[in-house]
Every structure is written in C-alpha cells, then in structure tokens.
C-alpha cells in the first residue's frame, strides 16, 4: 500500500512519451525507429531474399527471422557484453513468434525476411519496443501483413496496476512487482506475446489485459502515423511522430 504515486510522476495508465519514425535506414528494404521513454529501438528489415543455410528453407512459405541485440553502451551503466546471450536469443525467438501471426510470406517460398533490431538505450520494456519497431519496419518494407502488432508492458507495483514500467519501477523494493509484456494484433485483439515476471491473481491479470487493449490501441496510432508521415506531401524524408511530450531532437 505504500506505492501511492509513480516514481517518475506519471499517471497509472500513462505510457512514457513515444516517438516513432519509418524509413530512417536508407540501405535497408524497410526500417523504423521506436522510442518509449528512454528505451530506443532501431529496426531494419532485409528481404524477402535468398535463404542460407539451405536446410532452413521452407518450400511452402518464406521464413521470418528476428535478431534482437542490445548495444554495449545501452544498459544502465554496466557494459552489456556484445554478442548473442541466452537472454537475447530468447527475445529474438519471442519477437519472431509475436510477428509470425501477422506476416504472410506464402508468396515467397524458400526465401527469408530478416529483421534486425538494435537497442541503443534501454530502460525496461525493450522487447515491447523491439516488436513495435519491427512491425513498422516490416510494413515499410512492403511485406504482406494481415494486421499490425503493438506491444506494451503492463505490470503491478505493490498493489497498483501500472502501464509501461521503467527500470526504477521494475526494481521497486518496498513491495512485490509483476511485469507482463503483451503484444496485441490491432483488429482482432489477439495476443501474440504474453510473458510474466512476478505474481498476479487471476482478476488482476484480466484487468491488466483489458488495460493492454487500450494502450496497444494508442501505440498503433503512433505506428500508423510514423508510416504515413514517411510519404507526407513533398518529401519522402522521414519525420518524427509521437504522442505526448515528444521533443523533436531527432528531427
């Protein structure tokens, strides 16, 4: 009962400021930038292209491959050891599983679409940011997608349900903390990612998922705007778009 106000002064159901941009990496077939608070993800999509090693080829449909990576300087002061780790492998896998239901690669047998996500700065919620960025980048690459996917973390700090926890909250010491990253399809509201760290009752979980519906809908709007702004009248140069106090220092 001691958690009366959020540590950074946000409302219980308020996300950190979100910014998104599409097409920021000219060399890639599709790319995106997604920042939520101090968590920043860059996604680049390459393909559909020829797939190696050959034993991975699927003659029925194309393969989606995801790579999640935190940059060495992205952590909270400690250097993140470069290269694949148990954690990054897991997140690459859950990203792939959460994006697979929306991408349709039946037109591209034996081929692969590679999604590379680099995090330059992390302050919790990095897998959600990675999924949001990857979804924008896939759309930007012109991949056939039946829906858009948006992700956010819903959690419980002490006895309060909160949205989009930052690292301070995740590490809250005076009470139990639970953290549930959720990825949701926009139209059908199907859940394509659901993990949990900590404990929650059944009722709280149902409430948390209702909350996730509301927040992912907000994030979808940001993703949509980022893609539309890419083709705004006159230029094809990407513009930053976001919700709440998004300052324009990346413009």
């Amino acid at each position, binding site marked *: 009962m001691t958690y009366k106000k959020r540590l950074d002064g946000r409302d219980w159901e308020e996300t950190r400021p979100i910014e998104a941009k599409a097409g920021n990496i000219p060399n890639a077939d599709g790319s995106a930038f997604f920042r939520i608070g101090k968590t920043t993800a860059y996604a680049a999509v390459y*393909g*559909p292209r020829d797939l190696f090693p050959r034993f991975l080829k699927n003659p029925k449909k194309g393969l989606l491959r995801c790579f999640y990576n935190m940059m060495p300087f992205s952590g909270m002061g400690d250097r993140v050891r470069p290269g694949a780790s148990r954690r990054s492998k897991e997140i690459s896998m859950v990203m792939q599983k959460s994006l697979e239901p929306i991408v349709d690669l039946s037109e591209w047998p034996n*081929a692969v679409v590679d999604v590379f996500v680099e995090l330059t700065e992390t302050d919790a919620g990095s897998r959600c940011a990675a999924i949001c960025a990857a979804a924008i980048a896939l759309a930007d690459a012109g991949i056939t997608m039946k829906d*858009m996917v948006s992700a956010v973390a819903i959690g419980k700090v002490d006895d309060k349900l909160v949205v989009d926890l930052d690292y301070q909250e995740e590490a809250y010491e005076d009470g139990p903390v639970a953290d549930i990253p959720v990825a949701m399809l926009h*139209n059908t509201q199907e859940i394509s990612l659901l993990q949990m760290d900590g404990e929650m009752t059944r009722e709280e979980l149902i409430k948390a998922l209702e909350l996730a519906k509301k927040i992912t809908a907000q994030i979808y709007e940001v993703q949509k705007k980022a893609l539309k702004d890419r*083709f705004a009248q006159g230029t094809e140069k990407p513009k930053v778009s976001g919700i709440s106090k998004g300052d324009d220092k990346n413009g």
Partner: protein
Amino acid sequence: MSKLLIKEKEIVVPGEALAEGMDYLPGTGTYRLNDKIIAKRLGLVNISGRAIKLVPLSGRYLPKFGDKIIAKVTDITMNGWIVNINTAYSAFISMRDATSSFIKKGDDLTKYFDIGDYLRAKVVNVTSQRLVDLTMKEPGLNKLRGGRIIKINPQKVPRIIGKEGSMVSLIKKKTNCNIVVGQNGLVWISSENFDNELIAEKAVRKIEQEAHLGGLTDVIEKFLDKLMGGKK
C-alpha cells in the same frame, strides 16, 4: 449501410480498416474481416467502382510471366546461364533461349555472356516454387554494353516508364540517353556524354522519390530543363 473510411489516393498501413459494410469488395492488397475491408500492406488506395485495391509503395520484385527485366549473369552451367534478377530467387537462361546463333557442343559459353554481364530478358515461366526461366529470343532483348546500371524501388517502375512510356521518352529526349527500364527495378542508362548520364540518373531518382505525388511529368520536365540548360 456501407461506408468508406478512407479517401482515394490516401496512404494506408497494414491492419487499417478501409471500408465498412458488404457493398464494397476487397481487391489486391486487402481482405475482408467480418464486415470490414482491411489493408494487407502499405499502399495507396485505389477505388474503382465497388472494389478497393492498394497500389504498393515498397517491396521486392516478384517475377511475373511476360515481364521484361534486366538480369546479371552470376554463374554458367552446362547448358545455360544463371542470372540474378534483383529478387529472392535467381533465374535461368538456357542456351537455346539465349541467342539465335548456333552454339556448338562443348563451346565456351563465356564467349557469349560472361559472369557480371547485364542482359535484357523476358520472363517465360515462373513455377509455384519460383523457379524462373528467361528468354532473349525477341527483338530488343540483348546484352547491355557500357552505360550504367542503377537500382530503384521495383514498385516505382510504372512511374519511371509513365503512361505509354511518356516519362522515360521525356528523359531520353531531353538528355540524349539510351535508357532501358527493367520491371525488376534495374535501370540501364547509357550515353556518349558522361554528364548527361548523370543527369538522367538524377531524374530517375527524383521520380522514384516523388512517385506517389501528382503532376510528376511537369516537375521532371522543368527539372531536366534546369539541369540541361547550362550546356548544349
């Protein structure tokens, strides 16, 4: 009660609802979900009568029967050439489809096309597994000598060509260049004058960037006049 939720020529993103009600029909790039029509990719909306379809803005080239494309030779086999066609799959040109001249048994195929050569060819067959066969037995299909190859977004090729080739002939006329546009997003530009080649390349890049905007022919005509104005 059917209702359109978007306007003609609007840019839509995957998952965006385009129309409500059963009076509209889903065209390419869209599908029906319950009573809504949903976009399946990033694209420009095109409404023709009751059908709503999307014109893609980005994406790889998907080989299609009858397309004239530009291919790069990557390997030579016993009976033909393997070529890169700027997509996820490579294509094959067999010896008999490559030239009309007689090739002797055991002849050295590099005499005809060597690795790295660019060819203009036509797609004659695409299987369900995307094995692509090409032919060069048609007027205008040959090896491309000299000049430069530039890569553009394959979805913008129709704008580079323009209505009945109006855009590409405009650039050809103004810059005195030879230009071949492949459906797969490769463009070959060649001219005796190096500067003109560069100007033509710039024009192609400009069209690519502004392809989704209207009144492009006038813009390009002025653009070329400005660049070509300095000399002659």
